[in-house]
């Protein structure tokens, strides 16, 4: 074990020991039993100073600890001291587990995709578990931060509303605006590609515009196109147009001179050169823009709804429910938006891997 791991193991065992002392002295409720067992096992892990303990044992300890903690929630608010010590111990065991696992994986000894995925998964799950235990154990007012379980219940309970909002914001405003904006940006790039004059004039300005806070045009678009989804789609079009234009133009110049010369020796027309050489070479750039735009589109549509909507839509729901202090509903919307954004991004990435399979960044992975 490295130095960091050694100290981690020592502190984790020590915290368990102190927690065990507290639990035996003050813990009386039945729910405290699993937590006490976890603390006892954690204390026993100190024996590793004498005989080595596998990394999976640490993982199992962390899992057991979080299960015991989640099961013991709600017995007393705020939770007693040994409960918090157990939380710290479980977190330390999870950290130790990740630390050891990544050391095993680093040289590529046991490298398989499943284990590599395990580490971020453990990290995410521990964040969720700590969130749940801290908010419910310490009795944090749900207006400030609702526990994840409550958000989950809210998602299930208001699935209908969430679906209607999702339909309004994502399926209409985002997808249509994204398609139009990316399509127009690409078409504009193809058009100005022929003219060096236009390229020299438009590119610096487009670069400037893509650095501006375009979200600010939202109120203007709402004024022009009304409260419905077309105004949101219009903002998405404006936000996605410039990144697409800039990236496509850069991509169309990506084919090297020697490759163009080759096409010339084949007597290829400019159309053929475009279709067979320059468009495929522009693929990585275009997909880069598509990926940037997939997040921009969602942000644009949601923020635009802060300026006025019909009574449906994710941005509308977020701003009104914040005003009514229904924070769990806000978090539910954000969870939906996060999942939608991630799936959208992942979808674009998947298509990218199919289309630009020849690119080093895809081949290497």
């Amino acid at each position, binding site marked *: 074990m490295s130095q960091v791991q050694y100290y981690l193991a020592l502190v984790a065992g020590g915290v368990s020991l102190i927690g065990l002392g507290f639990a035996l002295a003050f813990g009386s409720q039945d729910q405290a039993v699993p937590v006490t067992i976890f603390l006892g096992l954690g204390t026993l892990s100190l024996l590793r100073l004498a005989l080595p303990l596998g990394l999976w044992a640490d993982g199992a300890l962390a899992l057991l600890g979080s299960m015991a903690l989640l099961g013991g929630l709600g017995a007393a608010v705020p939770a007693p001291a040994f409960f918090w010590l157990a939380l710290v111990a479980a977190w330390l065991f999870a950290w130790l587990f990740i630390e050891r696992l990544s050391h095993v994986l680093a040289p590529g000894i046991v490298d398989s995709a499943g284990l590599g995925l395990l580490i971020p998964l453990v990290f995410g799950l521990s964040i969720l578990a700590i969130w749940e235990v801290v908010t419910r154990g310490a009795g944090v007012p749900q207006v400030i931060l609702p526990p994840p379980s409550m958000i989950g219940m809210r998602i299930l309970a208001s699935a209908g509303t969430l679906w209607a909002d999702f339909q309004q914001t994502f399926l209409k405003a985002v997808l249509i605006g994204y398609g139009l904006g990316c399509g127009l940006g690409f078409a504009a790039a193809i058009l100005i590609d022929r003219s060096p004059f236009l390229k020299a004039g438009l590119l610096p300005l487009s670069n*400037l515009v893509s650095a501006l*806070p375009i979200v600010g045009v939202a109120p203007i678009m709402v004024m022009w196109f009304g409260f419905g989804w077309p105004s949101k789609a219009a903002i998405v079009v404006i936000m996605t147009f410039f990144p697409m234009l800039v990236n496509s133009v850069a991509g169309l110049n990506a084919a090297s001179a020697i490759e163009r010369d080759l096409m010339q020796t084949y007597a290829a027309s400019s159309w053929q050169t475009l279709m067979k050489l320059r468009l495929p070479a522009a693929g990585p750039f275009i997909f880069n823009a598509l990926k940037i735009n997939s997040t921009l589109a969602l942000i644009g549509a949601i923020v635009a709804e802060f300026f006025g909507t019909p009574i449906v839509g994710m941005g509308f729901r977020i701003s009104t429910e914040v005003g009514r202090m229904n924070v769990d509903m806000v978090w539910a919307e954000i969870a939906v938006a996060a999942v939608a954004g991630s799936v959208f991004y992942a979808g674009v990435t998947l298509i990218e891997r199919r289309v630009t399979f020849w690119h080093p960044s895809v081949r290497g992975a």
Partner: protein
Amino acid sequence: MSRAFPILVVLLASLALWYAAAIGLNAPWQRDVYGRAGLKDVPFGQFVADTWNQDKPVMPTPHQVAAEVWKATMLVAPNKPRSLLFHAWVTFSATALGFGLGSLLGIGLAILIVHNEAMNRSLMPWIVASQTIPILALAPLIVVIGFNIFTGTLGIPTDPARLMSKAIISAYLSFFPVAVGMVKGLRSPEPIQLDLLHTYNARPWQVFWKLRWPSSVPFLFASLKVGVVASLVGAIVGELPTGAVAGLGARLLAGSYYSQTTQIWAALAVASILAALLVAAVGLVEKLVNRAMGARPA
């Protein structure tokens, strides 16, 4: 000159397009006005001039926006709420505070990630995934709740509390580009350079200060430029939710409530100028740092 000429032509063309669009978009209202006044056969020149100079146009013309910006910055005392300089200052202070916090956080995270394999494997996928989440959607939540915590629990007066809750969003938006860019930058030294320092028996912190940090500077400034604009967007959006009375975002919202189109466009223009100034400032610092580090002018 040869580089400026095409830009100038495109700029003039977009101005012309803007004026043309203003005629089209403002025409229906202007016809209404003429209809009510009983005017018929208004000469076309008069009609065009009127569409360009309405009080509450659908599409204000560039000279109207410029006049509004001039009026709201130069002719009003800068400490009055009617001055755009006042609002720009409010937004700028939140942006600067958030940008500073976010950059420090991003750099710190990047250092952790580069030096610890467990951090790298557990944090990096989440940092990338969080890019796909519409973080701005959190803005109203963070502003309202942060404001309540700061004023209620911590007993901070309202103005600094408002500033801090907006700065949190700015920091949140600007730390991603900085963290990702710095991870790339701190890993940019070639293995052969790392090996050289190894042969010198350099300590890890010496490797960091003498090799990794200097070689990450170009990446740092590239991501700072992205981050500063993200902070500005965060501060503006942070001013949208109810409660904000000052700042460019509040100005946008007020303009949209009262259909003051010219006011919206003026606020937008000031926001764009602010963004350009911020990026230019980062660029200036970059130049100074490069010179101090002995870089030869390219």
